[in-house]
C-alpha cells in the first residue's frame, strides 16, 4: 500500500482542480456583483490578452509587446463601428477581429524577419507608436477616446449584472485555451515549436520560417483582438489610456507573474494582478510600484512564474512520494532475483 501517498496526492490535485472549476463557473452566483465584475470578469479578459502573449513566447519563442496595440486596434474598430455607424455589436466584433488579424499579418510580415530581443524592441516601438496615433487622431476621439459602446443586448450591462458578460468571457477563455492547446499539436504547431528551438535547422529543412512566424503572429492577434472586443464591451469605452506603455507593461507583468512558458499562467497572473489592482488602493497610492516590485521579484526568483512554481511544487511532492515507491520497487526485484 505504498501507493497511497502518490495516489492521494493525485486525488487531492483532481479534487482541488475540480473545486476551482466549480468556483470559476459559479462566480456570478457566489460573489457580489462588484467582485464578479471587477475581479472575475476582468481576470478572464486580461487573461485572454495575456494568453496571446504567452502563446507567442511559449510556442514560437517570440516575445511581442504589440499585443496591447493589437487589442487596441480591435477595440477602436468595434467602438467606432458600433457608436458612429450603428453597426450591430456582433458584426462589429467580427469585423474588428478580421481587421486586427490583417493588420497583424501585414506587420508580422516585416517584423518576423527579426528575432529575439530585436523583435521585442520592434514590437515595443510599434506599440508606443500605436498609442500616440490613437491619442492624436481626432477621428478616434484623441485623448478622450470613444465612449458609450454598448455590448450586445444578450450580454446585458456588465456593471449592473455581469452574469451574461462573465459567461461569454468564460466561454471565450475556454475555447481559446482549447484552440491553443489544439494548434500546438497540429503539424503547424510542431513547425512553430521547431522554429522556436532551431530556426536555422527548420530553414534548412525547407520550412518558410518568416512565413510561419507571420502566421503565428496573426494567430496571436486573433486571441488579442477577442480580448480587445471584450474589454471595450466591459468598459463601455476605449481610450488611449487603455493601450499606453503602462498597460503594455501591465500585460507583460501578468504574463510574467503567471508564467511565460505556460498558457494557464495567463489567467493565474491576471487573477493576481486584478486582485492587487482592486484592493491595493486601500493600503497604498503607489500601485504601479507594487506591481513593478512583484514583477521584479518573479523575474529574479522564478522565471517560470506562478505556473512554474505550481508545477515545480507538484513535481517535488510527486518525487518525494514517488521516491519511496521507486526505492521499494527495484529493491524488491533484487530480492526476488536473490
Amino acid at each position, binding site marked *: 500500500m505504498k501507493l497511497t501517498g502518490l495516489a492521494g496526492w493525485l486525488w487531492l490535485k483532481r479534487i482541488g482542480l475540480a473545486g476551482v472549476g466549480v468556483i470559476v463557473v459559479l462566480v456570478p452566483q457566489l460573489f457580489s456583483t462588484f467582485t464578479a465584475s471587477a475581479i472575475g470578469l476582468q481576470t478572464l479578459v486580461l487573461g485572454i490578452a495575456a494568453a496571446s502573449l504567452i502563446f507567442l513566447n511559449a510556442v514560437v519563442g517570440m516575445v511581442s509587446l504589440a499585443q496591447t496595440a493589437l487589442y487596441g486596434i480591435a477595440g477602436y474598430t468595434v467602438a467606432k463601428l458600433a457608436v458612429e455607424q450603428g453597426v450591430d455589436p456582433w458584426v462589429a466584433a467580427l469585423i474588428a477581429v478580421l481587421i486586427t488579424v490583417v493588420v497583424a499579418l501585414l506587420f508580422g510580415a516585416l517584423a518576423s524577419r*527579426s528575432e529575439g*530581443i530585436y523583435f521585442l*524592441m520592434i514590437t515595443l516601438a510599434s506599440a508606443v*507608436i500605436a498609442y*500616440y496615433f490613437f491619442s492624436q487622431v481626432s477621428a478616434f476621439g484623441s485623448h478622450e477616446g470613444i465612449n458609450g459602446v454598448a455590448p450586445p443586448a444578450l450580454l446585458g450591462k456588465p456593471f449592473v449584472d455581469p452574469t451574461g458578460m462573465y459567461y461569454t468571457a468564460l466561454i471565450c477563455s475556454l475555447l481559446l485555451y482549447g484552440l491553443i492547446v489544439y494548434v500546438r499539436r497540429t503539424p503547424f504547431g510542431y513547425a512553430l515549436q521547431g522554429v522556436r528551438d532551431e530556426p536555422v535547422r527548420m530553414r534548412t529543412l525547407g520550412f518558410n520560417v518568416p512565413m510561419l512566424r507571420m502566421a503565428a503572429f496573426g494567430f496571436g492577434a486573433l486571441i488579442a483582438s477577442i480580448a480587445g472586443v471584450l474589454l471595450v464591451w466591459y468598459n463601455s469605452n476605449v481610450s488611449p489610456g487603455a493601450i499606453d506603455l503602462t498597460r503594455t507593461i501591465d500585460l507583460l507583468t501578468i504574463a510574467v507573474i503567471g508564467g511565460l512558458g505556460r498558457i494557464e499562467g495567463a489567467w493565474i497572473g491576471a487573477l493576481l494582478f486584478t486582485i492587487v489592482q482592486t484592493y491595493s488602493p486601500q493600503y497604498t497610492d503607489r500601485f*504601479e510600484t507594487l506591481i513593478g516590485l512583484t*514583477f521584479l521579484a518573479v*523575474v529574479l526568483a522564478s522565471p517560470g512564474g506562478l505556473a512554474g512554481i505550481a508545477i515545480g511544487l507538484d513535481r517535488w511532492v510527486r518525487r518525494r512520494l514517488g521516491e519511496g515507491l521507486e526505492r521499494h520497487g527495484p529493491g524488491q526485484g533484487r530480492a526476488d532475483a536473490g
Partner: protein
Amino acid sequence: MSLRRLQAELSHRLAGALALLVLFFSIAWVLIRALGLFGGTGNLPQFIVVTLNGITLAGLYFIVASGFTLIFGLMRVVNMAHGSLYLLGGYLAFRLVQQQALNYWLALVLAAIAIGVVGLLMQQIFLRWNQGQDLRQALITIALSVVLADQMIPLFGAEAVTTTPPSGLGGSIGLGISGVRYPTFRLVVLGLALLIGFGLWFGIKNTRFGMIIRAGVDDRAMTSALGINVQLVFAVTFFIGALLAGLGGVLGGTMIALAPGQDASFLLSSLVVVIVGGMGSLAGAVIGALALGLVDQLSGVYLPTGYTNFSILLTFALLVFVLAVRPTGLFGRR
C-alpha cells in the same frame, strides 16, 4: 539559383527601390512646399526654423540613444529603463538648478554623474549575474522602469516643468538669413551632441579602452580569454551609457520639458533610433537620430492640411521602410 531565391532577391531590391523613391518624393514634397515652387506660396524662414528644430532634436535623440546603443552593442543588454534614467537625470538637474540655485553646468555634471552611478548600481545588482539571458535582463529593466516611473510622480510631481537655461543662453540669436532668430540653447545642445559624438567616435577608435570595447563587441569570449577584465569594461560602459541618458535628460529638460510619460517617449525615440540605424552602431545612431528628428518636425508642418496629426504614422513608416530594406538597421550587422 532557385526561383524562390530569385523571388526573394527581387522583392528585396523592389523594397529598396520603393524606399528610395519614397525618400526622394518626401524631400521633393517638403522642398516644393517650403520654397513655394510651382506657384505655391513658400515660407523660407519657417522652413529654416523647422529644419533646425529637427536637427537640434536629433542632437538630443543622439545623446540619449548613443548611450542605449553603446550598452546594447557591447553587452547585448536592452536597457528598457533608459527612458527612466533620462527623466530622472532631468528632474535631478531641475531640483539642483531651481531649488538649490546651483550653477547650471555644475548641476548638469552632477546630475549626469549621479545617473551614471544609478545605472552602474542597476547593472551590478540586477544584471551582472545573469549575463547572456537577454530576455530576462530586458524584463528586469522593464520592472525597474515601472518602479522608477511610479516613484518619480510623488517625488517630482505630475506637472510638466522646465529647467531655466544658463544665463545668456536663454534668448535667441539671429542667423543672418532673412532675419530668422533661433533659440540659443537648442544650438548649444546640437553643439554638445556633436562634441559627444566626436568624443565617443575618437574614444572608441583611438583609445585602449575603445579598442577593448570594439573587441568586446566582436567577440566577448575571446576578449575575456585574452586576460581583459570584461566585468570592469562592462561596468564602465554601463556607467557611460547611463550617464549619457542622464545628460540627455538635463538638456531635454531645458530644451523641451520634463513630465511623466517623457520616459516612455524617450525610450521610444532611443528604440527607433537604434532600430533604424542598426543596434550597437554609433554612425547608425547619428543617421537614425537625424532621420527621426527631421521626420518628427517636418511632418508636423509639411503634411497636407488636415493630416498633420497623422505625423506619428510617418515615424512608423520610417521604421517599417528600414525594416523592409534592412532588417538589422542601416548600419547593423548580423
